[in-house]
């Protein structure tokens, strides 16, 4: 009814291969992006931007990167936090050590170094698989934690080991208000999403998926495992590295290695699992779930308590937050093991044939 596709004929290969072959999808997504760029800056307040939207955008970008590796290529990685750290610290070094370095180039160079590190730690993936690979990538996490804590060069020899950047500007546009930061991150996210989406539906994306589904079979039909796996590591860590740079530069402003601890790696992996492995859309759902839900619970519980006349202490709220959050994760995984993205596509499928299910 709403999703009437009658009369939408595809007359060329081009039309058939669009990202959104259905016109309604196309319009809704375009309208949504326009809303994100124009509507949200007018509606949201400073708290929404700084505490919810900006972290959401950046972590969604990181989750996108992790999804390429874990969801599309099937290489489980626990080193995502480390790649974020590499991105942040190397972007910082490029930014402060080279005078007049533009912010965007610095962030991309952070991504470049993350790519190198990612490929290096991806080498074991040629031999080991599954959980063993997860343990191997864990090494990246510990190594980077160690390096950024101990090697003074990375932090420009600051006494506290914490680095900070400020006065971000792109071509004369200073990025200091929350709205500007939001738009800056949103720009990155949109560009990288488009890039990632196109990558995963191209030849290389199909190679990754073939490797994920059965690497021996993939090798038999002529896919080079080394090329496919390392390219997945490279693309994924590039995106994660840029996200790390944004996290440090735009969101935190000043950071220490603890901002990219093992917890961050787990968080990103959870985002991908809950959002939906092998789905670009899933990265956004997962990031929203992990970023927004704890903050929401944290504010909702005292309000809910007040409604029934119970005053809940902050410690109790914090504990409940963890319990409810954990329970929700388990519940979602039981109800829909393929993640929130699967729910989304099921819903869409139902809408397409509604109101005549057969």
């Amino acid at each position, binding site marked *: 009814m709403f999703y009437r596709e009658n009369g939408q004929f595809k007359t060329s290969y081009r039309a058939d291969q669009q990202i959104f072959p259905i016109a309604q999808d196309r319009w809704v997504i375009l309208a949504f992006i326009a809303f994100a760029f124009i509507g949200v800056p007018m509606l949201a307040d400073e708290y929404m931007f700084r505490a*919810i939207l900006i972290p959401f955008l950046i972590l969604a970008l990181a989750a996108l990167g992790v999804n390429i590796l874990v969801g599309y290529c099937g290489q489980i990685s626990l080193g995502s936090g480390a790649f974020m750290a590499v991105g942040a610290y190397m972007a910082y070094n490029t930014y402060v050590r080279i005078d007049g370095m533009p912010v965007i180039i610095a962030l991309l160079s952070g991504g470049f170094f993350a790519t190198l590190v990612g490929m290096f730690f991806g080498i074991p993936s040629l031999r080991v698989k599954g959980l063993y690979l997860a343990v191997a990538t864990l090494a990246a996490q510990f190594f980077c934690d160690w390096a950024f804590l101990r090697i003074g060069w990375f932090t420009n020899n600051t006494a506290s080991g914490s680095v900070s950047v400020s006065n971000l500007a792109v071509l004369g546009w200073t990025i200091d208000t929350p709205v500007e930061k939001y738009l800056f991150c949103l720009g990155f996210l949109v560009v990288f999403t488009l890039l990632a989406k196109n990558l995963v539906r191209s030849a290389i994306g199909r190679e990754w998926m073939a490797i994920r589904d059965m690497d021996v079979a993939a090798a038999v039909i002529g896919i080079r495992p080394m090329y496919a796996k390392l390219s997945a590591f490279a693309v994924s860590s590039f995106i994660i590295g840029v996200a790390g740079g944004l996290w440090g530069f735009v969101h935190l402003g000043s950071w220490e290695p603890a901002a990219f601890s093992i917890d961050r790696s787990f968080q990103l992996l959870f985002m991908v699992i809950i959002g939906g492995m092998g789905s670009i859309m899933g990265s956004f759902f997962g990031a929203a779930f992990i970023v927004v839900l704890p903050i929401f619970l944290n504010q909702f519980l005292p309000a809910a308590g007040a409604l029934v006349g119970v005053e809940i202490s902050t410690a109790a709220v914090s504990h409940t937050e963890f319990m409810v959050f954990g329970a929700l994760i388990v519940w979602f995984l039981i109800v829909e093991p393929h993640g929130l993205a699967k729910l989304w596509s099921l819903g869409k499928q139902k809408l397409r044939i509604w109101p005549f299910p057969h």
Partner: protein
Amino acid sequence: MKNACATLATVLALLAPSMSTNAIAQEKQQNFPLLTFRTGPYAPSGSPWANGFVDYFKLANIKGGINGVRIAWEECETGYATDRGVECYERLKGKSGGATVFQTMSTGITLALTERGIADGMPILTPAYGLSESADGEVFKWSFPIGGSHWTSADTQVQYVAQKVGGLDKLKGKRIALLYHDSPYGKEAITVVTARAKMHDFELIAIPVSHPGVDQKAAWLQIRRARPDFVLLWGWGVMNSTALKEAQSTGFPRDHVIGVWPSGSDSDVKEVPGAAGYSAVLMLPGPGFDSAIAKEVREKLHAKGQGSGPKEEVGEALYMRGLMNAMVAVEGVRRAQEKFGKGQVMTPAQARWGYENLQIDDKRLAELGIADVMQPLATTCKDHMGPSAARAYTWNGSKWEVSSDWLHADPAVLNPLIKAAADKYAAEKKLTRRTGADCQS
């Protein structure tokens, strides 16, 4: 993406009612947000600290608030995590008519908030912790490490060691290990202890312990091998008791382990049988079970069932620190009211003036009931820290005993370090030093 929008709308819709109820203006009130950590690995340190804060506010309200202005506070749980701290700051800074001042209660959060404080015009109070170079008020207009910083802690700690060996000149040739929490907090110590090591020619071995500090076997093996004369302990939360247990199993004499204020509360030593002899140099208040203010809290709050934590905790070092931190926040506003109008609600900018011109002398300390555990505080436009004094306390197995006179951090050692670090910060951030005219605002 569509779903993300829906989530956003839901969150907005659910937050809206809670915001509107808070916006209703009640009687005149001054808001003091609290970034507490009552959960997580540092909760043993965070709980008494937070309880002290809340009890002081309660007590001040019983006594009529700040010249009639009621004190309101709201806690936000950070779990000692920087990103949650930033979220809490953003949440609370504009809530219920706006915050007056933020106390970060964590060095990591301080680093993240320092710049936001400048941008938002929000004073950041970090008595005895925080960013040490922010003592330079000409560069850090909005940061206030009132009464001390980690650097003054480190300096007084070295002085106490010197006292134990019989003078600063006797430090020559000694070997001192610095066992520190590997975070911005712990690393703060290195700068000053290194400077002191150069001055007095003692050898410094810096040994980091990574978060959360429960695994110290390797660190103590290193200590066992290096055989230092003293161990300076810069721990936090569970790291402290673990260090003392390890010291015992390594056979390192506990009276040669010297802690710093985050390592010197009851929760650090109480459950550790071999902790007797361990001493800690506490910047700002030490334990004060018999202080007038502790008695007042027991009488006016706990007797009526309004105390925030367990009654036994009233007077513990970290509890007293909470009281004192809250006291500084309130006294700054009181001072600002003298200039901008008594009985008025102060804006953050007005409160900032108060923190910059704080004068808490002996007389005022006696009125506040903490004269026995504190030394006077005074800040100026140039110096956001003022004089800092610490005293060593030794754990005798059942309670802390004062074991030194007041130790004063040496400005001759610290000022050049502060100046250099502040200049470096100013250059990085492209800030110019404030001039005398700006001090009047």
